[in-house]
């Protein structure tokens, strides 16, 4: 299954519906080249989850925790671009967040962040010359059954 995204608004809209289906313990790996729209999609995910705080690129700070105002599932937004070594535990990031209460979205995390959770969804974004994007999925764990529920 693939999805075509024509504009940045499409990426946010898709992110929003993905965000609405995220549970605590979920791991989403966003893959794609520079400028694919990973941070833009994460902005939609945050909106769908209803978490607080402005989503901007966490490349420099490595990770940012967006908590849910109602004590619900928090979003941990990680950027592994500058990270050396793998990411086997959330503790490696020195965050004040527990995987049991959060969904983790990792940019540039392929080959690094897989050990974080069995229930992971790889979202691959391909950018075309006309600036449209094709999104494809690689589901693991419970995502094998859940991926079909995505729009």
């Amino acid at each position, binding site marked *: 299954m693939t999805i075509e995204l024509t504009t940045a608004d499409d990426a946010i809209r898709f992110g929003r519906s993905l965000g609405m289906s995220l549970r605590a313990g979920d791991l989403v790996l966003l893959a794609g*080249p*520079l*400028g694919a729209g990973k*941070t*833009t999609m994460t902005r939609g995910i945050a909106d769908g989850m209803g978490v607080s705080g*402005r989503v*901007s*690129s966490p*490349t*420099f*700070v*490595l990770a*940012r925790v967006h908590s849910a105002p109602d004590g619900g599932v928090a979003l941990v937004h990680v950027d592994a*671009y*500058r*990270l*050396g*070594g793998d990411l086997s535990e959330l503790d*490696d*990031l*020195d*965050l*004040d967040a527990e995987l049991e209460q959060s969904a983790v979205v990792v940019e540039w995390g392929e080959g690094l962040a897989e050990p974080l959770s069995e229930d992971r969804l790889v979202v691959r974004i391909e*950018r075309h*010359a006309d*600036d449209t994007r094709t999104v494809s999925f690689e589901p693991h764990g419970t995502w094998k059954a859940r991926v079909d529920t995505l729009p």
Partner: protein
Amino acid sequence: MAKIIMGIESSCDETGVGLVAAHDDGTVELLADEVASSVEQHARFGGVVPEIASRAHLEAMVPTTHRAFDAAGLSMSDVDAVAVTAGPGLAGALLVGVSAAKAYAAALDVPLYGVNHLAGHIAVDTLQHGPLPTPCLALLVSGGHTQLLRVDDIAGAITEIGSTVDDAAGEAYDKVARLLDLPYPGGPPIDKAARDGDPQAIAFPRGMTGPRDAKFDFSFSGLKTAVARWVEGAQGRGEEVPVADVAASFQEAVADVLTAKAVRAATEAGVGTLVVSGGVAANSRLSTLARERCAEAGIELRIPRPRLCTDNGAMIAALGAHVAAAGHKPSSLDLSANPGLPVDTVLV
């Protein structure tokens, strides 16, 4: 009698210890500025490892402190107050500086001030150019931050007017450098490559400059994507990428938006002084364009020298000096690091 303030910075890769003298006339004098960097250690691992950043701070803290006192010709008993970065930054890294500062403050029985890293980047200018006229405007540009701030009082009243909605300016430099096969951090090599290039060669987009965009916010993600597409296009056609022209055109787009928005904000607010600080302030095109546009608009421009623009302990000592001189209540010894400390909280 001058008061000696010690400043400790450990929010990211640099362990900094600075010493300043706060004089009765309000001037603050730089006595020592020692920095140890863990950038090389990270390079060995091909990136930042938070654990290693924290450990590197831990290992560097005491030697860096000793170097600072040696350089200033002072002893620890001369210290009248200790200031430390309480945030924003990496949690584990901040914790090392905060713990050290608490220990020094407790052992020396002097006040402790937990202060804001971002405000420190502005306060550092007073070490070079004297007391800040207020209100003034500050453009803070670094690897992690891109913010336009209004400063009514460096010791307490700082308001954000605008900030980046996606990537920081310095981050865009790092990513474009990677696209062009230039080394990390990307600022200096792009600046150097741009010298031989034509800044008008490629019309890269100016983010957030449309009529409906937030007037004083920034966006550099679209610019980064435009550069990526342009480079891929050239490669796809089998052409050699004109690195100098791409670097110069990219740098022009960044400097253009940063300076245009900063000068416009100063003009609209009727503020006569602009401070440009943070690591990217060392960029030659940014400083040249800022100088031109400030001169046209009749705005005084203050850019601290490059050594003061990057992270250091002297900036925290300088901010501590201003906070102490303003008579603010010191922080408690229960002070904790706050990775997400908002810019309007100068003192914790």
